């Protein structure tokens, strides 16, 4: 069971992290690592594209909360995009759907002001 993380920098200078696979105790450290590198890259807006995430548990949620808190401290935007029903459900169980800025697609998260 593999996880894929792809980092990208858009022309506007936004940082995108695309995660594909299942995020659990085994794979969330790799998401965390990539997220830290992206946050350190200095982009003013970070978009985490979760459209390829088939599963996420509390270790994935913890990773995203960490990213959100880091971004807030540094005055950066931290956006989530493309939540699959499974991931959305975990956010709802955790009452976190309102805590994050969530967009339906990566493009919307990048375009929106």
């Amino acid at each position, binding site marked *: *069971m593999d996880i894929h993380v792809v980092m990208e920098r858009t022309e506007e200078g936004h940082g995108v992290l695309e995660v594909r696979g299942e995020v*659990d*105790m*085994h794979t969330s450290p790799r998401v965390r690592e990539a997220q830290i590198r992206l946050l350190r890259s200095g982009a003013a807006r970070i978009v985490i594209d979760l459209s390829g995430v088939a599963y996420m*548990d*509390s270790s994935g949620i913890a990773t995203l909360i960490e990213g959100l808190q880091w971004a807030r401290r540094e005055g950066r935007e931290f956006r989530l995009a493309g939540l699959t029903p*499974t991931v959305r459900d975990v956010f709802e*169980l955790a009452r976190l759907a309102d805590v994050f800025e969530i967009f339906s697609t990566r493009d919307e998260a990048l375009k929106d002001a």
Partner: protein
Amino acid sequence: MAAEGTVSIRIPSDPKHLYLMRRLVQEVSLAHGFTEEEVRRMVLAMDEACTNVIRYAYGGDPGGTIDIEAHPIEDGLCFTVIDQGRKPDAATIAPRALDEVRPGGLGTHFIQMVMDEVRYDTSPERGTRLCLVKRRKPRDESQGKG
């Protein structure tokens, strides 16, 4: 010998095997008539239970084993998570307050929200048996009768 219809899986206490447990829980729960949403949540709760066993009962040591049993009951499924590690201190097993946004403290919360019964049995000589019961929701028609 296993009770009638019981299936079980044994994995090392290594997070890289958790997905196998999830597949089993998913297949068994679907086969027992739970809805897709219920199944997703049951998979999550079982994942959190096993993650905690790895983290706390085995302190991250991948050399232990976890047995996960799924046992049909009249109106649902009874899961048992068995470890041979350190027993939990009942007082420390507690989710965080949800309005406190911080990483961590969600696993036991998910377990409690999803499962109908959660019981930590520390009476075995070694380790812990965590019993988790999930019942199918009564159909609307039967609710109408009540």
